[in-house]
């Protein structure tokens, strides 16, 4: 490995927090470019398509923001648990069960005034997601079963449970496919095109809806929770130094459970976007990997809301732009973009520190030179 030792005290913050992630990202995209080339397409064209697809027209941009919404939720979910040094890999399952919560509340209470239904459905998402995270949290805190393992297992269990429910219990009996009936139209969350319609602007369909604002609010909520409240303080204390936490009378058990439940609740909010906002019913497998991609979003965003927002947006661009590319370029399949995501996760997560010393020492030396001259 590299032998470069950098005097950490001389590295400016923007080098470690902005330049390094950008370099890692560029590398991932460069390697992806090679794959696209090998697949027989022009990488430059692909980039153009991605940019056009995600920014070039309103509808595309709305799609980008819709994906961003989901990534904000799952990214925040991972980040909150991580501040307590818990690797919650179970965002996928928690989102799935969160969706169940949204649906059950909305379908059973749809007679209530609409804003109240929304509020309760949001609560349902949070509670169900949190409950699904509670079990691994309990097992970790009381029995020491590692959350990484149990949350992965709980993704499978969630998936099997939901298939069972969708096939045998809550399936729309007029249909063969495993999904529920639609929620009554009055309680759907207003979509972006409906909202623009009110302002007199006509826009074609996109799945973007009011949940986007909920995602933005969640960013603020997490920032406030982690840095401004006693709970965040205690979670961070447990995460950084469990021994010291015990000394200070902060219970690791309790905080593991709180952190995981908040994490699960945030993941559950994905169900609000998908069910109350977009499809209005539960479809099998609706979390579609957002939970896992959220891990990469959080890692790229350095587990801070200020980082998670651009990281989620970036993945939004890739998702939306990527689907444009697969549409226009026959040789590129959907799976190709799964690979691209994989590369981004690899470079900005697993290989985070691969080039860090070189980049940092480059800047440190440059800055030194400036100081001297």
């Amino acid at each position: 490995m590299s032998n470069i030792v950098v005097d950490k005290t001389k590295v400016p913050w923007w080098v470690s927090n902005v330049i390094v992630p950008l370099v890692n990202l560029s590398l991932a995209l460069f390697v992806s470019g090679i794959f696209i080339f090998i697949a027989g397409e022009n990488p430059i064209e692909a980039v153009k398509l991605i940019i056009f697809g995600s920014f070039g027209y309103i509808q595309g941009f709305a799609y980008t923001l819709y994906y961003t919404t989901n990534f904000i939720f799952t990214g925040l979910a991972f980040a909150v648990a991580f501040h307590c040094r818990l690797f919650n890999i179970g965002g996928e399952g928690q989102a799935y069960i969160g969706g169940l919560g949204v649906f059950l509340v909305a379908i059973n209470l749809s007679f209530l005034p609409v804003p109240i239904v929304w509020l309760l459905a949001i609560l349902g998402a949070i509670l169900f997601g949190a409950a699904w995270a509670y079990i691994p949290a309990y097992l970790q805190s009381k029995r020491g079963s590692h959350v990484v393992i149990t949350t992965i297992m709980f993704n499978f269990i969630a998936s099997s449970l939901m298939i069972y429910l969708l096939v045998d219990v809550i399936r729309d009996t007029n249909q063969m496919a495993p999904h529920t009936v639609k929620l009554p139209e009055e309680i759907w969350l207003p979509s972006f095109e409906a909202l623009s319609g009110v302002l007199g602007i006509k826009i074609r369909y996109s799945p973007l809806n009011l949940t986007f604002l909920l995602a933005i609010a969640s960013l603020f909520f997490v920032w406030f929770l982690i840095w401004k409240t006693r709970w965040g303080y205690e979670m961070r204390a447990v995460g950084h130094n469990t021994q010291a936490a015990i000394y200070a009378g902060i219970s690791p058990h309790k905080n593991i459970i709180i952190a995981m439940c908040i994490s699960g609740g945030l993941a559950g909010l994905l169900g609000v976007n998908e069910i109350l906002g977009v499809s209005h019913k539960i479809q099998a497998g609706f979390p579609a990997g957002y939970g896992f991609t959220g891990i990469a979003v959080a890692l790229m965003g350095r587990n801070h809301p200020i980082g998670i927002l651009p990281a989620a947006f970036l993945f939004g661009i890739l998702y939306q732009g990527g689907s444009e590319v697969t549409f226009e370029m026959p040789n590129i399949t959907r799976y190709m973009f799964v690979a691209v995501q994989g590369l981004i996760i690899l470079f900005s997560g697993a290989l985070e520190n691969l080039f860090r010393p070189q980049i940092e020492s480059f800047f440190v030396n440059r800055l030194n030179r400036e100081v001297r001259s």
Partner: protein
Amino acid sequence: MVSPILELKNINKSFGHVHANKDINLTINKGTIHGIIGENGAGKSTLMSIVFGLYQANSGSIKVNGNEIKLRSPKDSIINGIGMVHQHFMLVENFTVLENIILGFEGETVFGEKLKKAKKDLKKLCETYNFNIDLDATISDLSVGFRQRVEILKSLYRGAEILILDEPTGVLTPQEVDELFKILRSLKDEGKTIVLITHKLIEIMDLTSEVSVMRQGEMVGHTRTENTNKEKLAEMMVGRSVLLRVDKPEVEKGETVFKVKDLTVKDDLDVIRVKNVNLEICSGEILGIAGVTGNGQTELLEALSGIRNVESGNIELFGETISQKDNYLNPRMLKEKGLAHVPEDRQRMGLVTDFKAYENLIFGYHDQEPYSKSSILNHKEIIEYSNKVMKEYDVRPSSPNLLTSNFSGGNQQKIILSRELNEKPKVLLVGQPTRGVDIGAIEFIHQRLIDMRNKGAAILVASVELEEVLSLSDRIIVMFDGKIVGEKINKNVTDRELGLLMAGVTE
């Protein structure tokens, strides 16, 4: 005959707006033991980290044997014959001594013949300097003193001619200190050069031939040890004369505060560490626990402070049972009853080093008003409070927003002390109150403890420094192998008496 081996010229180093080293000049002669002293945060560790290549100076030059060298990383220093033993050892716990020394030795893979040769070389080094180390022992089985020796051996094996030791005796027992000093002397006799950073002036007087004094980032003086004494050194360091002894007026003892009955406590590995201990502490009294580290003091303090479950017996605080087997009040509840605790090991327990200073200054009190209200932290209050106590306890720099790991060792200790003493506890448990703290601050801390006692606090002090126990305590107990082997009223007690008890010799 004396020739300089290491020359530093106009070394400057800043961390943000903290100017840690200002135009430092220092010459170290070959074959000497050179002491460096100075207040907490004076810049000693920083300077030596520059010499070892961990930090790079902003300006200045370094010469080894008259040749100017560039130090970009520890690798460069090792090539130039400079070795450093850090306060926190950097050894792989589950590797053997041999593996630890050989692995990571840049660019070499050692097998077969080479391994045999390495082992032979190391054996020879061990013999020359009386290291008395089993090269095949696993690190985790070794005591702190031996681990330190492994670090020294590692530096020597890599060709160190200059060996830097940063506060090496802070964590050692008195016997271990003696043995370390023997080794250092024999290293000197073989022509090696040693740089010793310490807060214990007695060590400077015993061991060194020259001493340099730093204050607030500057080098304020060099002197030959034979031309000075402890008092003069203390004055050079702090810039005023220091009382090396505190005033302790007689006060009436009050009611019994802590009552410990037949207490037995196990450690994390289920080994019994405290055996049938009975003790009482009254208000207005300082009870000192003397004893070599590892004789149960840690576990006793942890049980008293609600961190550790007890095996049998019970603990009463103000007449109320606070701890029995599998049933004890946690530290937070005890805090509400007025108990404060300064833990022995600041890095492991007393601080979250990744927190900012202000976050550590309220650690454990963070849920109380005015620091937080309905679970929301009151940032403004906390900062105001932090500014106040940091000034009062002279924590340097007094920047509440600085990351705790960026404070010097002694200043980290002051952060804990200011937090625990400032809450005006009725009962105070203190482990190693002044470890790593400079003498000016020791005087201040001792004075604080005595003031608190005068005002009626019940205080328990566990310290490996006999001098500290003797100057603070009203009553002294000695722990050996988990038992209390002696109890003395602190009148005319001698070091010797305590020393014998500490070694397990009972009369």
